[in-house]
């Protein structure tokens, strides 16, 4: 532990900014610490105060509630009168079991929306999944000779209309005030703010623990060029500019024009209470490539930024407290839900790179 601390200090890069001449005069005591903590929380990237986006949100919430009532109504109908539903949509009356199950699903979605309260984001997305199921079922029915094509077309048109509403509502609920996606994560690390600030400030080293970054190159005094991995094996690039740099406290950046993905954020280094190290706060805003839907899909593959930032911070903690990223057999390549491998040693010939390969 002691050795790694000394190594961190040695690797500070001189970027031409003024380093503090003497330790900053800190006001002492718990009260002062509390003031510092609370002031940190209100300084953030976006502006304060209600605006157009707030109005948009409450519209989305009203729409969500309307969809919830619709869900409950339709669900009850499917549950109690499946044959009638089958007739109206032009399909055969023999799949009553399936229709009843869909009824249960609709009711569950409806209850979910009410249960989630103010921003029923996930519940509305579950409606979208249900809609996809409905569309698929109707498509299968279209192939059968026994369906009444006219009625089926009518039913499909209705489902598509509701699907559009669901997706619109879900997107509005998922987006934040400026229409992008925001990620706020923090982690507590057993090291001083100075050590972690210095480690982080060496941007070219960030890819060692930030798995989604392919490379970072310093291109100027406050400029750098970033290449990040995007879903489906592609990459996105942007140039970033440091907008604020308070040694041992905060680094703020913003992507400049021409970025593949607009993003801005801050990383703050707060002394943890009780001398227990540092709390690193990351506050990041970006416009997800592929919109919010792409972001949901990315989640399944462990490539969704909120998840990634959390894991990146965990890896940063490992690198600082342990000296390297901890590997296991099951997560040797990736620790996404669908990308785990069996918990067995990796064969010598197995292709690909381990998560920790870039750390060495």
């Amino acid at each position, binding site marked *: 532990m002691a050795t790694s601390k000394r190594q961190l200090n040695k690797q500070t890069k001189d970027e031409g900014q003024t380093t503090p001449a003497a330790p900053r005069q800190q006001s002492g005591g718990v009260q002062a610490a509390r003031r510092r903590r609370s002031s940190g929380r209100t300084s953030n990237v976006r502006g304060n105060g209600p605006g157009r986006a707030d109005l948009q949100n409450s519209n989305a919430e009203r729409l969500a509630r309307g969809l919830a009532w619709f869900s409950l109504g339709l669900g009850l109908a499917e549950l109690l009168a499946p044959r009638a539903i089958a007739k109206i949509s032009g399909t055969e009356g023999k799949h009553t079991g399936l229709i009843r199950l869909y009824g249960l699903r609709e009711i569950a979605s409806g209850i979910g929306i009410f249960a989630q309260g103010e921003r029923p984001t996930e519940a509305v997305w579950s409606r979208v999944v249900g809609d996809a199921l409905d569309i698929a079922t109707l498509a299968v029915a279209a192939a059968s000779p026994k369906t009444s094509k006219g009625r089926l077309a009518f039913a499909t048109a209705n489902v598509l209309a509701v699907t559009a509403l669901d997706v619109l509502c879900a997107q509005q609920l998922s987006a934040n005030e400026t229409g992008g996606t925001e990620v706020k994560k923090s982690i507590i690390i057993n090291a001083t703010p100075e050590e972690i600030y210095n480690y982080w400030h060496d941007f070219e080293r960030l890819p060692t623990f930030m798995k989604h970054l392919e490379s970072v190159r310093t291109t100027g005094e406050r400029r750098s060029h970033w290449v990040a991995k995007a879903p489906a094996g592609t990459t996105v690039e942007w140039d970033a500019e440091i907008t604020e740099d308070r040694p041992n406290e905060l680094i703020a950046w913003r992507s400049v024009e021409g970025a593949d993905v607009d993003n801005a954020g801050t990383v703050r280094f707060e002394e943890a209470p009780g001398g227990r190290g540092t709390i690193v706060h990351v506050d990041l805003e970006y416009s997800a490539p592929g919109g919010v839907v792409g972001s949901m899909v990315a989640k399944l593959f462990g490539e969704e930024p909120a*998840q990634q930032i959390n894991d990146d911070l965990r890896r940063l*903690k490992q690198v600082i407290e342990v000296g390297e990223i901890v590997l*296991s057999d099951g997560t040797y390549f990736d620790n996404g839900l669908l990308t785990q491998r069996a918990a067995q040693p990796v064969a010598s010939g197995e292709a690909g790179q381990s998560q920790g390969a870039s750390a060495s």
Partner: protein
Amino acid sequence: MRANCWYGKQDVRVEQVPDPKILNRRDAIVQISSTAICGSDLHLYNHFIPTMEKGDILGHEFMGEIVEVGPDVKNRKVGDRVVVSFPISCGNCFFCKQELFSLCENSNPNAWMAEKMFGHSPCGIFGYSHLTGGFAGGQAEYARVPFADVGTLKVPSTLSDEQVLFLSDIFPTGYMGAEMCDIKPGDTVAVWGCGPVGQFSIKSAFLLGAERVIGIDRIPERLRMAEASGAETINYEEENTYEALMEMTGGRGPDSCIDDVGLEAHGGHGIVYAYDRAKQMLGAETDRPIALREAIMACRNGGTVSVIGVYGGFIDKFPMGSFMNRSLQMRTGQCHVQHYWHKLLEHIENGDIDPSFVITHRMPLDEAPQGFDTFLNKEDDCIKVVLKP
């Protein structure tokens, strides 16, 4: 190498898999000389624990000889005979520094998964699903041991494998169950579950100064083993546990109660048990807290309920009213093995206890599937199975 791999509910197979390699700088590779099947392995065998993948190597109780060390392991060398702890602990984080090794913040690469289920992630564990990191387990010929400088214990050649193997898990676990009771001289301790961990809880309770220990189970050979350690026993299929404990303690109840049973409890009666099973079938309750409820109701006012049996999800109908109104305490956790094992090795060396007493079956690694079956069904008076690779 050969290893025992999980393939589904009650389906484990011994097959050829790649040999482990050093991946992190503080790893060691251990050639395994003895390994065991744990009661908690049965939760994997019966597929109660989610996030298992086909091909996962099981096993978290193992020992052997170090055959390779990573560059940053300073206190072990090739040739050392070691027991390996089931929790994987970095030694540097907030929790490891307090010797709460099973709470290590750095050893679970799948911490995000455990965080979703539990709120925060505990440490990584060998061979215990991807929730605890997806580490290959020790029912194999070799294993990669991360943080070997923290997670291995050198053992003297004067003690046989069977005498020290259980320092990896069940002896410290049983001991921690008893230690959490904060036993005072004259205390009566009731232990639910006389499986291997329960047997160690019983012996540990006496070691820690309990005057009376009462073991509760239904399998005759397990009750006999408990009696051989000096415990009084209750066969819950022949009498009502609560009534028997009240009678034995003059209506006050035992001073502390240890739940060495966990989520796959058996033996509830009547309505509540039927309710538990019905809810489990509907997937609405993941764990059966039968022993836990009994322990709470039976414990004396102001006493301690020590929960060392494994739980994974959620329980229903928890007697919170009884718990609160009677000033009970609950202490629990996955065992911080590395905190206890030095002291327990001393007990073994001094002859205070010979942990091999729980072993009833020994078989080669290739017969692991049979071993799991025998252990699960408690056939042939089975209490503990040790495998030899």
